[in-house]
């Protein structure tokens, strides 16, 4: 059994490291000197250059591996250290894993999101393990007076043919004094003994015994609790408040309003904030603060149009956030109007206009999807202890390096005076890539001159979110008289962004192709939500392809394979950003493993969908039955190509979870507004999939290859929607165009 510890206090940790006397502390410099916002862009663009690893070995042979990346359920606490341990050549069961502290210089990007953890740390962490092993061998060679080439290792031991042997810990202090070697040869996949062998979650025992791992669980002596009363609607702001009654409530320390950002504050792309005027209640305990908040008397007024300065992707720009109080039905109507207007051309191949003009048949379908809340089980929260000259903040955050520069500006403290501790996250799904709650906590602590934990109630979390955008897309296919697909057109729009990835399949597979996009502004805050844009695209496009296949008289898998064959052998256009062979590979694997077309499966309404996003490929066959008069997904067969799988059992868990999440959101997921007010407030009126609605069986199959690993948190998720829609058609005889599918028939499918 592995041990894990949380480095809640970086200073005490560093102190103990030094006290450990002679321990080997190995780190690599994250070479780039880029600013944090440049780093942010670099991570998103996959253009970063080098990463770091971190290993500590004590003389008593305790070997610790630090997980650099925030953990939100994707199991990096286990899988990232596995990659270090593989090259270090140690027994996995003897390793202690510890959550790393925040230091982008030593530990790399430390960013959880975009299905990037494994991919971006794949080489650096193995190199860290290999470098440490080489230094230990060199230390032994020096001590024993033999060439390094003669020193072998096995399971944390150093050996020489003359019979000498030593534990890693025996040589750790000498090894620490050596230069870090470069250009190390790493193991071939066939030689892996830890990678690709299932390992249990290193925090499993702590999780099942209720240990304090999460931000919500953070405790500090003298800590106060804070909550924020936000306006009742997007588009409103605080006018005035009277706290006389609330201040008399037991346990209440203070009630005040502060601004999150001063006028003209330059926001990064991840400084998104819902409301700027914060009405804050601070007290001794959560229940007391909750009760006092109810006694607040506040007046709200229309915020009007707000000008924001955003310096994110695409450079610095002024953005006008419209002040209108928005209603979902009106937003959909506006989107339908916008869809008729000319849009920005994103990609054009051949002559789509002529193809549609000459078509014997045109199929045109429009798909819509609402806002979605992240609904992390752990509501947003953050701890902060800010004083005149330093700040400690701790909590669940996907990218500590992104919040640091903003904290520095807001608190007027240099980054080196700000310590950020990463707690385990009770879900993330993109929500915790935005540090608003950390900034709020820090400003509240500064005002109170006390340690403060800010807590969002479930209602705050749901109605005060940074949501999945609303999307729409109209797909058109042109067929000639022989039912050949001669033209393809997608025009997508959204609030506030369009969903289109113009260079993805079926771009590259059709001679005449046109992709267009448009967008509408909103004051309802939106952001990254598990597989941004793809989570809608895959649903719409994969449903549409199912209809096109039907019109062409083709099997839906065969249509996709035929198109992919074309994309491989004679690709249309440039910049096609998927690999047709790997895409076809998951379709074929899903077809084979699901027994597609076999009579023994004829009792099921079957739907297929596949998608490429975040560098990995996924296909699902959904098997639906009618249960108690309603469609029910009973089984799912999943085929995934994410290259080398680091921790197979955990990877299967992640895919199964993505399938369940996909089914739930396809059927039920929706967040709607009336005059800026969220109509869903908690789990009694925001429906999440429950145990009895999940499939009885989800078989997960991975394409076996030796391709460098890519991510898995997002790629299996988007195609679930399409596969569910296609199975629903088989089950009900009706096509489903509007998410969530339960809405299409007055709440019943």
């Amino acid at each position, binding site marked *: 059994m592995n041990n894990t510890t949380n480095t809640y206090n970086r200073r005490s940790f560093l102190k103990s490291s030094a006290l450990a006397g002679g321990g080997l502390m190995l780190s690599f410099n994250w070479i780039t000197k880029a600013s944090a916002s440049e780093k942010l862009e670099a991570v998103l663009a996959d253009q970063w250059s080098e990463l770091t690893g971190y290993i500590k070995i004590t003389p008593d042979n305790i070997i610790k591996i630090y997980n650099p990346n925030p953990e939100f*359920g*994707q*199991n990096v606490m286990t899988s990232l250290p596995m990659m270090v341990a593989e090259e270090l050549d140690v027994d996995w069961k003897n390793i202690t894993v510890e959550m790393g502290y925040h230091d982008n210089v030593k530990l790399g990007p430390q960013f959880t999101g975009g299905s990037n953890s494994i991919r971006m740390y794949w080489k650096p962490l193995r190199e860290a393990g290999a470098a440490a092993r080489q230094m230990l061998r060199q230390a032994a060679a020096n001590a024993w007076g033999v060439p390094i080439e003669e020193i072998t290792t096995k399971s944390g031991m150093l050996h020489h043919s003359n019979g000498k042997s030593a534990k890693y810990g025996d040589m750790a202090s000498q090894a620490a004094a050596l230069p870090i070697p470069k250009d190390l040869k790493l193991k071939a996949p066939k030689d892996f003994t830890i990678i690709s062998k299932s390992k*249990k*979650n290193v*925090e*499993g*025992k702590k*999780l*099942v*015994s*209720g*240990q*304090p*791992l*999460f931000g*919500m669980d953070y*405790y500090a002596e003298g800590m106060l*609790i804070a909550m924020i009363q936000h306006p009742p609607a997007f588009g409103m702001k605080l006018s005035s408040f009277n706290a006389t009654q609330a201040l008399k409530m*037991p346990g209440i320390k203070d009630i005040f309003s502060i601004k999150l950002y001063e006028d003209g504050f330059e926001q990064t792309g991840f400084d998104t904030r819902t409301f700027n005027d914060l009405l804050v209640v601070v007290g001794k*305990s*959560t*229940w*007391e603060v909750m*009760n006092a908040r109810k006694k607040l008397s506040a007046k709200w007024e229309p915020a009007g149009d707000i000008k924001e300065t955003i310096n994110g992707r695409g450079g610095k720009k002024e953005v006008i956030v419209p002040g209108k109080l928005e209603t979902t039905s009106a937003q959909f109507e506006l989107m339908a109007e916008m869809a008729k207007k000319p849009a920005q051309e994103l990609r054009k191949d051949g002559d789509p206009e002529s193809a549609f003009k000459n078509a014997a048949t045109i199929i045109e379908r429009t798909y819509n999807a609402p806002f979605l809340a992240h*609904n*992390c*089980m*752990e*509501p947003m929260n953050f701890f902060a202890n800010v004083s005149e000259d330093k700040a400690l903040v701790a909590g669940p955050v996907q990218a500590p390096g992104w919040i640091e520069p903003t904290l520095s500006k807001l608190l007027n403290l240099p980054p080196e005076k700000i310590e950020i501790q990463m707690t*385990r*996250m*009770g*879900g*993330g799904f993109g929500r915790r890539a935005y540090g608003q709650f950390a900034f709020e906590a820090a400003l509240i602590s500064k005002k109170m001159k006390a340690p403060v934990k800010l*807590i969002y*109630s*479930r209602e705050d979390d749901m109605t005060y979110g940074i949501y999945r955008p609303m999307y729409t897309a109209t797909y058109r296919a042109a067929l000639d008289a022989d039912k050949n697909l001669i033209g393809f057109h997608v025009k997508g729009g959204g609030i506030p962004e369009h969903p289109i990835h113009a260079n993805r399949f079926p771009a590259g597979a059709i001679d005449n192709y046109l992709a267009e996009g448009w967008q509408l502004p909103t004051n309802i805050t939106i952001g990254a939500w598990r597989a941004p844009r793809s989570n809608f695209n895959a649903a719409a496009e994969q449903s549409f392809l199912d209809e096109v296949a039907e019109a062409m008289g083709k099997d839906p898998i065969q249509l996709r394979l035929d198109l992919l064959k074309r994309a491989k052998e004679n690709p249309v256009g440039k910049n096609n950003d998927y690999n047709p062979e790997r895409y076809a590979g998951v379709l074929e694997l899903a077809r084979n493993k699901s027994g597609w077309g076999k009579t023994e499966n004829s009792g099921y309404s079957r739907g297929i969908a596949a998608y490429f996003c975040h560098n990995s490929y996924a296909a699902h066959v959904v098997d639906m039955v009618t249960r108690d008069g309603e469609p029910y997904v009973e089984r799912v067969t999943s085929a995934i190509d994410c290259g080398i799988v680091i921790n197979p*059992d955990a990877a299967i*868990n992640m895919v*199964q*979870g*993505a*399938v*369940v*999440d996909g089914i*739930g959101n396809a059927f039920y997921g929706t967040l709607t507004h009336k005059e800026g007010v969220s109509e869903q407030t*908690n*789990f*009694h009126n925001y429906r*999440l*999939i*429950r*145990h*009895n*609605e*999940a*499939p*009885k069986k*989800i078989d997960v199959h991975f394409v076996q290859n030796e391709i460098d690993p890519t991510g898995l948190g997002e790629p299996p998720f988007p195609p679930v929607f399409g596969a569910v829609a296609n199975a629903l058609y088989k089950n009900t005889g009706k096509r489903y165009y509007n998410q969530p599918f339960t809405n299409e028939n007055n709440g019943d499918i």
Partner: protein
Amino acid sequence: MAKYNLKINGKTRAVDVDPSTPILWVLRDHLQLVGTKYGCGIAQCGSCTIHLNGTAMRSCMLPVSSIGKSEITTIEGLSEKVDHPVQKAWIEHDVAQCGYCQSGQIMTAAALLRDNPNPSEEDIEATMSGNICRCGTYLRIKEAIITASKM
């Protein structure tokens, strides 16, 4: 404010809190027993599940004034050595993803097995449907409960 002597995990704990305070917040804020989680506050998600005299209860809507002499068990008190069959099965099946809801899932499962040592799949689905897992670990939850029922 009022004083209460609560029986929690086999010990008597004294607290001085408002009588309306839900046990959830007494545990979390006043006793630093934070394994019991806040998820919704309206008994919809099950993250806050504890045992009251062995019965699974939602602690987020259970006022401290209603407890009396009842015995509270939290996830921290389910076993001394993390060896309750449900905990062992949870580790064996590596159920957790983010893990936040799992205390509540485990407490609900442990109460189920106490009342119904050999539950059918339907029994498990019916009982566990009160506990939301946003990561979607439902299959493993079911497998782990079946494994635990055989221990």
